[in-house]
Structures are given as C-alpha cells and as structure tokens.
C-alpha cells in the first residue's frame, strides 16, 4: 500500500472520514498519524507539531486508537482494558478503574460488564469497550480504523449512532477510516474520498460529495442513489402538511366524505391507526364512526422536527395512500404530505443548497 502526496487538513473537533476501496492507502494514512507507519517523505503536524519529533509511546498515549478487530487485551477484564492508558500514564489503579466505569456508561454499556473478560462479550459490546478504551485518557485526537466493519448491520447502525452522540458531546478530532460510503456520509463532518492508487479524489462535506461529485469516480463511489441519499441532509421542517385527510376515530363516515379526500387517515388519541380509501366508505351509512371501518396499514411515519426529507419521502413511498404522515415527538399526527408537496419541498431545499455559500451545514 502506498499513499502519494496526500495533503489533508483535519479541523479540530470535527470528524473526518477517509473512505475508499481496499488498498487505497487510507489505513496507511491513518497509521502515519500515530507513527505505526513512518512516512517516507512529508510531514504530519498535530496541533502544529511534527509527530516525528515526539517520543512515539508518549505521542500515542495522547491519541485514541480503535481498530476493527478491537485489539482488546484478552487477559484483562473490561475495566482494566479501558484503564490501559490511564495506568500507563501512572494513575493509581482505583482512580483508573473509576474512570473506566464512567466510560462504560458513556459508551452505553452496563457497569456489570466491568469484571468480565473480552471473550464473554458480544462483538458489538467488544467494539464499545474498544471505543471506551480509546477515550479513557481523554485524548484530543481519536483514530478509528474500520471500527464498525466487523459487526452486523443493526449493531453497526447503533454503534454509529453512539459515536455521533458521543462526538456531539466530546468534540474530539476524529479521523475514521472506512470502505463504507454510507458510514462516511452518516458520521463524517468531512469526507475524504481516495482513489485506488492512493491519491485524494475529493474532500468535502457529505452533502457536497453527494450533490457535487467532482468526477465520475466520485459519483460512482457515492452510488447511483446519491440523489435520494442527499435528501438526508434536507430538513423536513419546511414541508407543507395537510390536516384535511386526518380524522379522529369517533368522526363519522359522512364527515369523511365531506372532505372530498381520496384517502382518510384515522387517528386515535392523535396517533395514526390506518388509512381508509374513500371508495370503502361509499356503501356505508353516514353515521358510522370511522373507528369501525376496516383500515389499511399506515407503513411508518416521519418526525416533523428533526426528520429529513428522505424519511418523509420513504414514508410516502411505503404508504398505501402515497402520503407521508408527519408526527411530533410524542408520535401524534401533525399532518400528511403528498408527493407533490414533497417534490416542492425537495426542489426548494435543493435551490437553497446550491445558492448557499456554505453548503455543508448539517441539518
């Protein structure tokens, strides 16, 4: 593996993801930062200091490191694994273990696991311990080499969510290597996409890579559905919602017919129960409560606050009525949106994105 003329600036407190095919040098680049690999030329500056000027062991204690195979010490308990760097830094055992317990909680693990050995944990738990160990001495910089690649997709998603939540609290400078562009887009503030021969193809925010790939290689790597995925970065808050088709379960068939809507969303206590097509109501007596009419499923909903247009579009696609149901924090229906309304919102967000000076602002 080789890396050529890599010039990359990692902003403090941000997550930068190095992504690319196998053998593109992304891992080599990562390992140069903590000197597991020495560059043949060039410099790596950490906070303005050349890493090669530092004592390697001391340098590394200030840089958290997480790898795919976890690299947990099999002969140490979970708490002693986490306490590794504090102990190396000369902390007392009790203090280091106390810190380890704090970190267990931070990465979402039960304290009861503290005395277990790594072989007694699931793959996902081991990886969380790996993250906790890397954070134990509170290093400003965190290097992560394919940290979530070895676990199944559900666990991976939950580990990614944990990382995003941790980062919003800790503001570490994170360099994460992955071959998974989805992961890069999900967790990265900046994504650096490598070409197979070890050169940078494009560096930008996830939205920039999806919206304005510099060439066919980048466009191909981010995938054919990048347009849809880019909708993840557009907030659903600007979407127009209709309350017209939304009726309570105790409303009558006559009232439903009076709306003139082709589909009625029946709600109970504000929560969606199901869609009823207008033609099903035609033969029914006008005073029948809607709650007694057989309703179709409603697929899933999207949160109006904090949700993305991608979630809204997906909710519309899966709905029998072709309409997305927007809900509040408590799962109560706020309103529904048709494809036409989604289209208008997407076009508005796209125009705003293209004209903005700073297209990288994350929703």
């Amino acid at each position, binding site marked *: 593996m080789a890396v050529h003329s890599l010039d990359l600036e990692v902003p403090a407190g941000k997550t930068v993801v190095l992504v690319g095919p196998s053998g593109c040098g992304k891992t080599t680049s990562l390992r140069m930062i*903590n000197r*597991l690999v020495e560059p043949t030329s060039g410099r790596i500056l950490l906070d303005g200091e050349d890493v090669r000027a530092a004592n390697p*062991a*001391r*340098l*590394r*204690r200030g*840089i958290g*490191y997480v*790898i*795919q*195979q*976890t*690299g*947990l*010490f*099999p*002969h*140490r308990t979970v708490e002693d694994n986490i306490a*590794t*760097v504090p102990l*190396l830094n000369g902390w007392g055992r009790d203090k280091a273990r106390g810190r380890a317990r704090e970190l267990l909680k931070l990465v979402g693990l039960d304290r009861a696991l503290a005395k277990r*050995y*790594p*072989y*007694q944990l699931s793959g996902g738990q081991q990886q969380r311990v790996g993250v906790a*160990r890397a954070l134990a001495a509170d290093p400003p910089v965190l*290097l992560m080499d394919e940290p979530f690649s070895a676990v199944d997709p559900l666990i991976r998603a939950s580990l990614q969510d944990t990382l995003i939540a941790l980062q919003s609290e800790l503001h570490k400078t994170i360099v994460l290597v992955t071959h998974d562009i989805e992961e890069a887009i999900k967790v990265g503030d900046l994504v650096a996409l490598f070409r197979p021969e070890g050169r940078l193809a494009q560096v930008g925010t996830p939205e920039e890579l999806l919206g304005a790939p510099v060439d066919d290689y980048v466009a191909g790597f981010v995938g054919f559905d990048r347009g849809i995925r880019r909708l993840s970065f557009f907030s659903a808050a600007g979407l127009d919602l209709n309350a017209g088709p939304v009726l309570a379960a105790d409303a009558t068939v006559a009232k439903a017919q009076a709306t003139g809507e082709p589909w009625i969303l029946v709600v109970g206590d504000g929560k969606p129960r199901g869609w009823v097509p207008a033609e099903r109501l035609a033969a029914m007596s006008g005073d029948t409560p809607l709650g007694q009419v057989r309703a179709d499923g409603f697929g899933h909903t999207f949160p109006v606050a904090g949700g993305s247009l991608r979630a809204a579009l997906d909710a519309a696609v899966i709905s029998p009525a072709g309409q997305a149901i927007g809900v509040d924090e408590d799962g109560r229906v706020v309103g529904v949106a048709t494809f036409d309304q989604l289209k208008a919102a997407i076009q508005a967000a796209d125009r705003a994105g293209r004209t903005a000076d700073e297209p990288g602002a994350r929703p």
Partner: protein
Amino acid sequence: MMWSWIPSNGAQIWQYTQDHILLGVLSPLIGLAISLPLGIAAARWRWFYPPVLTIVNVLYAIPALALFVALIPSLGLSDTNVIVALTLYSLCIIVPNVVAGLRAVPEPVRQAATAMGYGALRRLVFVELPLAVPVIIGGLRVAMVSSISLASIAQLIGVYSLGYFFIDGEQRAFPTEIYVALVLIIALALACDLVLVGVRRALTPWVARS
C-alpha cells in the same frame, strides 16, 4: 507382588522418591528459566530461531546415557550431572513453545498495545508473555512428564532415584520393587501435570472454557 515389602522399606522408598522429584521436577523448571530468554530472543529476531532450534534438537538426539557419560569429566557422577542433562533435553520442548506462544499473540492485540503507548519491553512483559502462558505451560507439562520418566535412568551412573528399584528388582528377580517404582513414577508425573494445569488455570482466568 509382595505387599509387605512396601511398609518394611518405606523410608528407602520415600528417600528415592524425593531424589526423583529433585531430578525430574527441578530440571524442566531450570529449562523454563533458560527457554524464556532464548524463546523471546528467537521470537523477536527471526534469524536467531533456526540455529537455536537446531542446537536444542541435536541435544535431544543424544542418547541419555551418552550425555550423562559425556558430562562426567566436568560434573562427575552427581545430581548436577543428571539435572544438567535433563535440563538440556527440556529445552527442545520448551523453547519452541515459548516461540509459538509469543507468535500466537494476535496481531491486532500487539498493534493495539503499541498504539496505546506501550514500549517494546512493557508490551512483552504485560501483554505478550501473559498471552503466551497457556502455550508455554503446555510445553512445560510435556517436558515435566518426560523428565520425570527419564530421571530413572540416572541410576545407571549411580545417581539415586526411583530408577534404583528397577535395577535392584531386576538383579534380584524381585518384581515387586519394579511395580512399586513404576506406579510411583506414573503417579508423580500425573501429580505434577495436575499442578501445572492448576497453575495455568489460575494464571489464565481469561481463557474461554466450554
């Protein structure tokens, strides 16, 4: 089988059992002490391993009696002579196990240790050697059992062990002695093996047990 022989010769049996333990148990323990630095060096510098392996294998190929005799000019007909010979034999089993144990440390673990800020020596002492313990003790068990068995032929150069009863029993056509010594040697080997298994379990609570 003459059972009454056992109680009437209890003191002598006990004495030779102790002599046997000294020869058979001490030798592999000294062998372990020598094998550790040799094995560590061989695991660290690859070029060093082939010559070391050749030497310990050649030593193992020398017939025991020939080795005892070869050591007589320098060490005489003594316990030391036998202990040195048995120690040399044990190297052939223990050194490769030390090397294999160290090489079996998973690369991600080694890499993580380095990246956490362990220097080479600390990493060896606190990560690599502890992880090599099961394989090293595996080698020590084989060396211990074979050494306890081999110690009986020390009697051929006049160094006392339970082997005395084999020669004496054969010369006097008195098989009881032979049976008793045989059972004691096997029991001794089993007991030492059990102790080593216990030591390994105590040192490695982290190994998955089914």
